[in-house]
């Protein structure tokens, strides 16, 4: 019952390509939205549940992508091994970074994560020998899953959706675990959580690493799906967009973050026609949601609906 929403969502995304066969919009945009869901759900664990802002999350996304890209093209590693190496490396960096960075709060944390994201981006642009510099790395071989080479839009939709569901399932279970409760306590009041015996430093480190791993995983998939990576996909704008997804849907709600990711992906597609207005609308939307529905569209609307339902029942 607890995961009813999850099964419903899983059935829906599995049915989509059946209901709309050969529909470019559903398959390609769907895959893109799926990657964003993984990223947003991971970031939401950190932002929504633990209450720690990260304005540099694209860095972890990029690390996963570049690990896969560099190891497969320059060293000829099998794609799954490269993916695993990317996860280990990103996890290790996140773990090393977690303690000093998560001791900071509020604006300081925002600045530190932002700075970290910019440093990683500069390295991607400048370390040309490894990363291919601003032009990026092309010719990344397809993802090979135990002999099955993932090719074509439909196959990619399947793989990304499966990965997305795995990420959602993990996040939903994590939130309801002891770690999840500890995190929410940290969000409420770090001091009170400490008094209750929660090792807040440990809890924050864990969620930071998990969140980075989600991003790196999405990054590896992205690199193989696109067969190309360049620093532009991992800059500050992308970090801000990831934050937008989380807050748009609603912080501290896994489905909220997922909805935010899907909504923003669709919005971008819709705004392609009004290219010049995209930035304006993006900014206005971000401000409006935070001012009027600070708990997010999804959470705000569902709470509104609940309240309405209660009022209607009382009146009848």
């Amino acid at each position, binding site marked *: 019952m607890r995961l009813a929403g999850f099964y419903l969502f899983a059935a829906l995304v599995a049915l989509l390509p059946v209901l709309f066969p050969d529909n470019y919009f559903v398959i390609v945009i769907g895959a893109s939205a799926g990657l964003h869901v993984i990223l947003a759900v991971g970031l939401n664990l950190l*932002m929504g549940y633990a*209450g720690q*802002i990260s304005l540099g999350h694209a860095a972890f996304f990029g690390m996963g992508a570049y690990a896969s890209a560099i190891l497969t093209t320059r060293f000829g590693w099998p794609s799954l091994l490269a993916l695993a190496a990317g996860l280990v490396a990103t996890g290790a960096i996140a773990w090393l970074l977690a303690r*000093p*960075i998560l*001791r*900071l*709060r*509020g*604006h*300081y944390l*925002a*600045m*530190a994560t*932002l*700075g*970290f994201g*910019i*440093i990683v981006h*500069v*390295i991607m*642009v*400048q370390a040309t020998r490894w990363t291919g510099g601003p032009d990026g790395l092309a010719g990344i071989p397809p993802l090979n899953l135990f002999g099955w080479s993932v090719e074509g839009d439909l196959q990619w939709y399947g793989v990304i959706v499966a990965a997305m569901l795995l990420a959602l399932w993990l996040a939903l279970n994590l939130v309801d675990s002891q770690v999840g409760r500890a995190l929410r306590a940290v969000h409420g*009041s770090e*001091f*009170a959580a400490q008094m209750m015996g929660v090792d807040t430093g440990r809890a924050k480190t864990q969620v930071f690493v998990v969140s980075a791993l989600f991003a790196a995983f999405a990054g590896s998939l992205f690199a193989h799906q696109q067969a190309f990576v360049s620093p532009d996909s991992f800059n*500050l704008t992308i970090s*801000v967009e990831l*934050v*937008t997804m989380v*807050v748009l849907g609603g*912080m501290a709600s896994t489905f909220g973050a997922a909805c935010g990711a899907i909504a923003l992906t669709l919005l971008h597609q819709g705004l392609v026609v009004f290219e*010049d*207005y*995209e*930035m*304006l*609308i*993006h*900014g*206005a*939307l*971000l*401000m409006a949601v*935070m*001012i*009027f529905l*600070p708990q997010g569209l999804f959470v705000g609307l569902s709470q509104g609906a609940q309240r309405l339902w209660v009022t209607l029942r009382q009146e009848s």
Partner: protein
Amino acid sequence: MFEQLFQFLVTGITVGSLYALVGLGFALIYNASDVVNFAQGEFVMLGAMIAIALLDAGMPLLLAASAATLLTIVAGLLLERFAIEPAKGASVVTTIIITIGAGIFLRGVALLLWGKDFHSLPPFSGDTPIQLGGATVLPQSLWVLGITVLLVALVRAFFNRTLLGKALLACSFNRVAAQAVGINVRVMLRLAYGLSAGLGALAGILIAPITFSSYEAGVMLGLKGFSAAIIGGIGNPMGAVAGGLLLGVLESLGAGLISSGYKDAIAFLFVLMVLFFKPTGLFGHQLVERV
């Protein structure tokens, strides 16, 4: 070698002056409202772009610069009225995201008005370089330095000598207490946003002849200004000025001696180190968090 170092120093102080002005703007707003305004860099961009547009329309430089500063101040006041005030009492994360949104919005407006092209302002007094002890100094650099010193002195005098400045300072210590002694906190808040936007705009106009300006030009400048404020200890105006100069010099030395491509990475690495080892800033004092 020495001459080269001197050259880097001159460049660093020029850029650092801008970081100082932007950082000062951050500190003003932070003091008055506990908000870190991530749209601060956009004030810099707006100042430069409006001045360029007005100059192109045939206005004399001084008039164009003054009008651009005034218009940017209006933008700052509008930001305060329509984005910050309605979200009063929101969490830190919420206000950070609101101001980020405001920054994107202002960039979007600039993109619509002026496109993606780079624009530049002619130097205030020619571009014949001046030889100074082996270093080459652009006349514009002297303008930047001179006006920055003047503005910082004015802001200092404003806080130390005028009643209005002292009232603003009182708000930064304790808003409720300030209200209780009859200071109109709301007006003070607007004053801080206006001042901060004005400082940003002036910084943008000063630098526009040296670096080109575009709708995106404010992003990095804003972040460097924020870094300056953090290095100096957030909410410490003169600390922000010192932090800005330090950051500018460090960046210029890093670019000259290590690698120009890595200059932003060097700057932010320094900021990270300050945050890790002395998060209250190099010139700040210890703050105790109230639970």
